[in-house]
């Protein structure tokens, strides 16, 4: 343990023929991504407060929460149409309210006044306390959503440009197509798990993108190196070789990042566990897509061009 490694991830010199299964990989990915897109349109993402606007108040009551008492207290403060649901432990409740539509005058001021009413209602319950109270106006939520999407889009473009600059366009395009496929699957995951899609989730998805790109760059780096080294090897064989050579690194890194994020998913508390679960999902998807999607795409796109360019010089 202190000198030589005790365990090894992948046996030395694996020769797995990944490219043989390339169509199965692509087809599986396509099916999953299309299914995710369908889920995205129906039933759709559970939008969090940041993007939907509205009011969310988390409260802790003394002893197990009695919803009827809470509803009565809210009604006494003229707060109606509130959703009261349990959350976390038995004495924690979540109260949700929609904001008045933007078409109404003073909707922002009324939204803010509603939070105070909910607070007053909770203050009437003995021993209850407000843990968190958030109110996001309609105009802000639209803006936050736009900025979030902008960040996602610009990151993708920057990644495309960077890989294009450092490698060649086949690498950049197959990487970005793979990233988009990863992204759709992450969205499908969010729809199925009902994790709320908010700013923190945008951060999670961007992290997945960053991580996934990192993984692809390592494999591509090896492909590029091997393209120079083995000038006559067919591209399919060369990509297989590159994946096999980097396999123990790919799996090793995925494992450490997975291990780092796992406790967060299990014990990180309500505000972080959703984020961490999405990360864990993204690590699995990102790692598998480097091997089964990004590499086959590179093969499809680069089969003619990459090899022709790298043909051995006439003199040799």
């Amino acid at each position: 343990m202190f000198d030589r490694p005790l365990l090894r991830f992948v046996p030395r010199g694996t020769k797995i023929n990944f490219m043989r299964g390339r169509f199965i990989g692509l087809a599986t990915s396509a099916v999953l991504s299309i299914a995710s897109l369908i889920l995205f349109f129906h039933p759709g993402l559970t939008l969090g407060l940041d993007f939907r606007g509205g009011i969310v108040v988390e409260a802790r009551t003394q002893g197990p929460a009695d919803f009827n008492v809470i509803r009565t207290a809210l009604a006494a403060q003229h707060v109606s149409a509130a959703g009261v649901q349990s959350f976390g432990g038995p004495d924690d409740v979540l109260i949700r309210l929609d904001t008045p539509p933007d078409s109404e005058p003073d909707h922002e001021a009324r939204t803010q006044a509603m939070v105070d009413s909910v607070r007053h209602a909770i203050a009437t319950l003995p021993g209850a306390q407000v843990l968190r109270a958030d109110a996001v106006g309609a105009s802000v939520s639209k803006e936050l959503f736009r900025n979030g999407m902008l960040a996602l889009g610009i990151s993708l473009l920057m990644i495309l440009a960077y890989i294009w600059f450092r490698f060649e366009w086949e690498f950049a395009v197959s990487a970005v197509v793979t990233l988009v496929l990863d992204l759709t699957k992450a969205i499908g995951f969010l729809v199925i798990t009902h994790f709320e899609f908010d700013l923190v989730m945008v951060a999670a998805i961007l992290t997945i993108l960053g991580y996934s790109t990192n993984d692809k760059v390592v494999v591509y780096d090896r492909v590029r190196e091997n393209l120079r080294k083995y000038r006559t090897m067919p591209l399919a064989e060369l990509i297989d070789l590159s994946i096999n050579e980097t396999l123990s690194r790919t799996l090793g890194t995925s494992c450490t990042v997975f291990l780092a994020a796992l406790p967060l998913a299990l014990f990180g508390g309500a505000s972080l566990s959703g984020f961490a679960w999405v990360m864990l999902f993204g690590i699995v998807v990102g790692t598998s897509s480097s091997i089964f999607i990004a590499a086959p795409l590179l093969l499809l796109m680069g089969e003619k061009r990459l090899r022709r360019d790298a043909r051995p010089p006439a003199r040799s």
Partner: protein
Amino acid sequence: MMYYSRLRMASVIGVCLIGLALCLPNFIRQPSPSLPWRQIHLGLDLRGGSYLLLQVDMASVTADRLRGLQDETRQTLLKAGLGYRNLATGAHAVTFTPRTPDETQPDLKVLRAMPMNAPGEFKVEQGEGGQIAITLAADAARQRAYDAVTQSIEIVRRRIDATGAIDPEITRQGEDRIIVELPGISDPERVKNLLGTTAKMTFHLVADSAIGSAVPPAGVEMLPMSEGQGTLPVFSHVDVDGADLTNASASIDQQSGEWAVNFTFDSTGAQEFGDVTRANIGKRFAIVLDNKVIEAPVIRSAITGGNGQITGGFSAQQATDIALLLRAGALPAPLNVIEQRSIGPSLGADSIRAGGYSLAAGFVLVIAFMALFYGRFGWYANIALLANLVLMSAILSLFEATLTLPGMAGMLLTLGMAVDANILINERIREEVARGRSALQAMQAGFERATATIVDSNATALLAHVMLFVFGTGPVRGFALTITIGIVTTLFTTLLLSRMLMVRWYARTRPSTLPV
């Protein structure tokens, strides 16, 4: 490549030690106020508190300027001996119809010569049916909102300081917004009310002749009374402006036993107040706060001392707050709260605990993994990892950055990713060993090849997170910042520190085989 000069070694170790020293302020108390003591701030989500996002009410900024413009238009036309009909203010323009079509050209000429607050502030045009419209430019309105925010920040700060809030942070966001962060205040209702009040106090003469008339005559406005129902007609002209106040305080009125607000004018205000009261004895004088009449007492004698008192049936809190608002000054335009987030202290403590435990558990798992799978070189990676954590905290302290819950997640993720660089190096060395290279050659080739890959992969991640920082807001920004810093420290700790440890070990022992 395999040689590590003493100077280079000393600087790497030096950086780590400096990092350690920079981390210290987070753990011990400042021994002397003269020492610079920068530390990481805990975000509101970790220590509890409130976040408010305020926006300048654009509609009111524009309406204010248009009201002034209508006044200027009337006076400019009268001074030039020109007439007008149907002078009115719309949402974006002041419009009127010239008395006769012949006057159109002279009208346009004098109006275009009106002084502007900014170049191109308004346009004077002839519209359909001979109507003349004076339209405010959108840019000028935005500039006014920007200026309003600049002026408001100071007033907001004074108002919040007066509530006794500890360490409030007030920052501008964009053109027309202000962020207010209040650590430790988990119910921002009072602050919200204070900030939601413009506190513009003006004194107007009451238009007694217009009482009871349905439509007020020109130059008279119907203002609501603050107590009870009903409205009172007052002259639009501001006789004395509350901006000339120097002080205000709440006290109990000796005679009535009611709460009252006392105020003192500066010399200009006292002069004006004296002149107006002297000339209008026996008339009613309305004290108007935010377009509501607080009270309208009859002037019994000239008030020359520059002191006044308002008694409007206030409660103690109301009187104190009004005095506070008057002292802090009026906001140039109303501010609306458009986003509010508050976290109670108990939830913050829960989050720190959960986040801290997860961080520690993740760290232990990663260390165990590296030790099991990479042996000696894995431990070197672990030392680098620890140094990475120290350096990250050091840079965050140096920036006095705010650590949020997503920021903690970012730190954990960095630790996972930092290991990647070491894994890349170790795997490369293994490959070279498998190819039958000598220990020295394998290490050399391994470092060299892995470095290119490490730089490539980290550069892409860096790009993605810099973008996230630029376009992100709030918690996302904190997350992006920690990861961006993490990438930089990772490059340092793996490319310099863990490599140094490996190279020094090699130089010391000269092994024939590597422990990979």
